[in-house]
């Protein structure tokens, strides 16, 4: 136990920062919003990292699962009054089932071809949901406040229901709930990385032939990665819907959303559990700083800076910022050793 805590010391420091910042230096709605976005996108980034970072199958279509999560929980809440806590699990199962059916044979595709296929899946979902009248078609679904959803309940009951329905009139509790979920996802991903499954995923990423030669069925392990990844992405989608309070196909399914998951992870560190959270922090901090600097929407300046940053980082170190950190660590470590000798 102590060993594990020692190994994940940076994670504990990060967690502490995430707990403290919202109640100390960042006590504004603006900062709270940014932190919630960081956590949601980092969560889905972790999911994307499982299939693309660890297993090496680049997906450009994770918005598909993200959107399914958002739609499932919202539809269940709005139409059937089922709490999003259950809704996110249902959404996760549906997303995982979709991933299983779609990729059962699609894993025959490799490299770029696979990436294009994943892209298509998300685009198909976008088209379906923007035409499907039962889920609001082009209008999307706006989530009604909890008091409006079930009329005639008392104030204390509303407070309880707010927890149950993940309502975000009060941002701080929602922020901590999202944080707790992110921590859970982080722990799951870290545990997977250190298990047999994680080793097998990495072996598949490095070489299909080697994986087969040591008794790994690549298709099964890729499917497993994709399904777990889809499940987590759907949960992220539910949190997004609960936070944004409005969803339509253009908000949750477009390629730009898929690319956020890719970019934050690639910037932070591909195939590293810290990657998505580091990348998301940088992405959204940039957004916040640029907005403060220029006023209003930030006039897209953050996009320019972020674009430059990602080009710079990936050119110098393909493993992202965590790769650079590792390199510095190795150098320091090497120097220390040299000094001792």
């Amino acid at each position, binding site marked *: 136990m102590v060993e594990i805590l020692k190994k994940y010391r940076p994670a504990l420091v990060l967690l502490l920062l995430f707990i403290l910042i919202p109640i100390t230096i960042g006590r504004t709605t603006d900062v709270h919003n940014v932190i919630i976005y960081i956590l949601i996108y980092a969560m889905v980034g972790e999911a994307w990292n499982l299939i693309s970072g660890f297993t090496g199958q680049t997906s450009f279509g994770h918005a598909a699962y993200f959107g399914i999560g958002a739609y499932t929980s919202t539809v269940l809440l709005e139409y059937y009054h089922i709490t999003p806590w259950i809704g996110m699990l249902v959404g996760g199962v549906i997303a995982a089932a979709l991933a299983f059916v779609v990729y059962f044979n699609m894993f025959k595709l490799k490299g770029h071809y696979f990436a294009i296929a994943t892209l298509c899946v998300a685009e198909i979902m976008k088209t379906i949901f923007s035409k499907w009248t039962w889920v609001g078609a082009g209008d999307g679904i706006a989530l009604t406040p909890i008091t409006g959803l079930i009329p005639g309940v008392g104030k204390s009951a509303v407070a309880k229901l707010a927890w149950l329905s993940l309502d975000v009139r009060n941002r701080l509790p929602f922020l901590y709930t999202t944080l707790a979920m992110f921590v859970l996802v982080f722990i799951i991903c870290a545990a997977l990385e250190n*298990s*047999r499954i994680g*080793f097998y995923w*990495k072996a598949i990423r490095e070489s299909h032939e080697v994986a*087969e030669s*040591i008794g790994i069925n690549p298709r099964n392990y890729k499917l497993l990665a994709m399904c777990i990844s889809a499940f987590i992405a759907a949960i992220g989608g539910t949190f997004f819907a609960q936070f944004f309070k409005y969803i339509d196909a253009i908000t949750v399914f477009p390629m730009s959303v898929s690319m956020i998951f890719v970019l934050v992870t690639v910037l932070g560190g591909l195939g590293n559990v810290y990657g998505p959270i580091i990348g998301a922090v940088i992405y959204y901090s940039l957004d916040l700083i640029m907005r403060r600097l220029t006023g209003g929407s930030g006039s897209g300046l953050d996009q320019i800076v972020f674009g430059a940053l990602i080009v710079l980082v990936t050119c110098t170190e393909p493993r992202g910022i965590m790769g650079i950190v590792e390199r510095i660590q190795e150098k320091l470590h090497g120097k220390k050793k040299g000094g001792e000798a």
Partner: protein
Amino acid sequence: MAELLKIEHITKKFGNLVANEDVSFSVGENEIVSLIGPNGAGKTTLFNSIAGYYPPTEGKVYFQGQDITGKPAYDICKMGITRTFQVVKTLKEMTVEENVMTGAFLHTGSRRQAKKDAEGILEMTGLLDKRNVKGGSLTIIDKKRVEIARAMATRPKLLMLDECMAGLNQTEIKDVMNLCVKLKEEGLSLLIVEHIMEAIMPISDRIVVLNAGKKIAEGLPEEIVNNEEVIRAYLGDRYNAESKKS
């Protein structure tokens, strides 16, 4: 000697190209059999057919009496045949220890057990002091060692080595030879594809010679070196004729 691997009348065609034609031989328990032949003789193709990378066009492969023809590589590995690759395929982003652990995970779900299993194999292959080095930054001899160690970790009954000595210097070849003998002492059977005669002769129990896809000879090492057809295949007719004259 009990037969471990038996291949019968293997033919492999790629379109009109016949890579293997009617090849049959067997590998006994605790035996080192070498597969030799000039470039393009179809050694690696035969290897791939046995290890399940592609099914043979005709013929059967039996392992411990069971028909394994056309089974996928990962199933064949689970049964007890593990191969290495001619072009080394080290898992670059993983450390030496992790490379070997990946193999060891075939028999255990526990990380601790896999680490323990890997340690023994790392010691035997002389990689213990490099356990934390990333696979990508190793020298060629160490990459080949990792290749063998990773295969060993799956605890095969039959280990198939595809040109594991190519590109090594004399001392390194000696190292690999010793390792092969050590593996045999551990009770393994080996099927080795190799070019380097002086390395293969002393350690092999039996040798099978392929030329242009066909088996042209099989026997003890000393029989093979004096076999006329083998000499002709390796050195050409002219040399064979000259050797007769002198």
